[in-house]
């Protein structure tokens, strides 16, 4: 894996989610490329938000994964923003990440 395959991202957690991630709101993340699928080894699998979610779970999450991830995506009730835009406008989990992107995860589930 070469350096050019790493994406530098800013990842933020809010609404109580930061408690699962070392109690830190803001993280700098160097995201490695996803492994390419064997039959298509020549074709690169793009790093999308779904991949980032799994990577965060395996690398940054400190406790209670079930509060963050469910059925392969974020748990319902967690809002995601891509560069300050609702991810629902950006293809949700299939949004392909770009160098320098800012991704924000906010839980809505905590008391009012």
């Amino acid at each position, binding site marked *: 894996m070469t350096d050019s395959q790493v994406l530098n991202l800013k990842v933020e957690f809010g*609404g109580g989610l930061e408690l699962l991630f070392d109690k830190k709101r803001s993280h700098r993340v160097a995201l490695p490329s996803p492994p390419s699928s064997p039959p298509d080894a020549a074709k690169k699998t793009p790093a999308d938000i779904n991949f980032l979610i799994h990577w965060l779970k395996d690398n940054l999450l400190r406790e209670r994964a079930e509060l963050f991830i469910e059925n392969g995506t974020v748990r319902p*009730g967690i809002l995601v923003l891509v560069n300050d*835009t609702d991810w629902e406008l950006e293809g949700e989990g299939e949004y392909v990440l770009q160098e320098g992107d800012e991704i924000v995860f906010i839980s809505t589930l905590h008391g*009012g």
Partner: protein
Amino acid sequence: MPSKTCALCHSARPILKRPKTGQQICKDCFFKVFETEVHNTITEANLFRTGDRVAIGASGGKDSTVLAYVMKTLNERYGYGLELFLLSIDEGITGYRDDSLETVKRNQEQYDMPLKILSYDELYGWTMDRIVSTIGRKNNCTFCGVFRRQALDRGASALNVDHIVTGHNADDIAETVLMNIMRGDIARLGRCTAICTQGEDTIRRSKPFKYAYEKEIVMYAYFKKLDYFSTECIYSPDAYRGHARAFLKDLEAARPSAIIDIIHSGEAFEVKQEVKATQKLQQTCKRCGYMSSNELCKACTLLEGLERGLSHAVITDRARQKLDAEEPPSQAMRTIPYFNLPRAPGVTS
């Protein structure tokens, strides 16, 4: 697929998909439409009159923080002529409420509103910390809920306000509808969707965010960079509610209108409920003067249980009567200060 321009102004770049309508809208239009919808909810339900003194039940959490901000904005923009206050209840939960009250204190300065904090400790002589260390973690939310309700009324009466507004949003109300269905509590089903409730003598309470989706409240707080506190109570919310919430979020993910549809279902029960409501006569608690449908109000009953070290036994009326027959309550027992009703609205001192 993302459209290039906002569905409302047709010029700016959209930043949000509205759960209610599916529209893709820009930041300015989002602020405007969110605020205008709350304004419409307020005017259509005739919630306020000019000169009303209104307390915002403030927990430091997202909903009440956004509510305080929006109430202040609308009061100025549309000239409601309201006097706004922040009212916070300190349940006495170390590591949770003490931190969230710091947020409310900052809000007091940011929004320039007088703040009143009333604690369980001063009102009941018990903090939630002590209640939980005495009765454990099973019924703590029952105690807390009953105590909070009465504390809010008493705080409001101390501020001499006409009205309490709370940050309950559409998701909260839909969740309560579901819970009442699951419990078979049809009597509560209609009442829980009412935007404004007022018993015989109680202070009016209303929910200006009744039709506001949680997603939009959180997005509003995010884009306005509002300062709120978001930690779960350390005495874990009751699991049943947690399930109802998760279920609701799953429904919403599949079909965003589910929230409003559930509220409408609850509202359909409202009419029948009115007939029932008159059947149980309200009276005042013989011990503390708070409104009650029995001789003793719920808070006095629960407090007596705590004081007598028999909390679990006193939760039902029948159990308490049995207890009284065996051993009458001691005179030295801690009771709640007598509740004097606030002056009727419109009567000034």
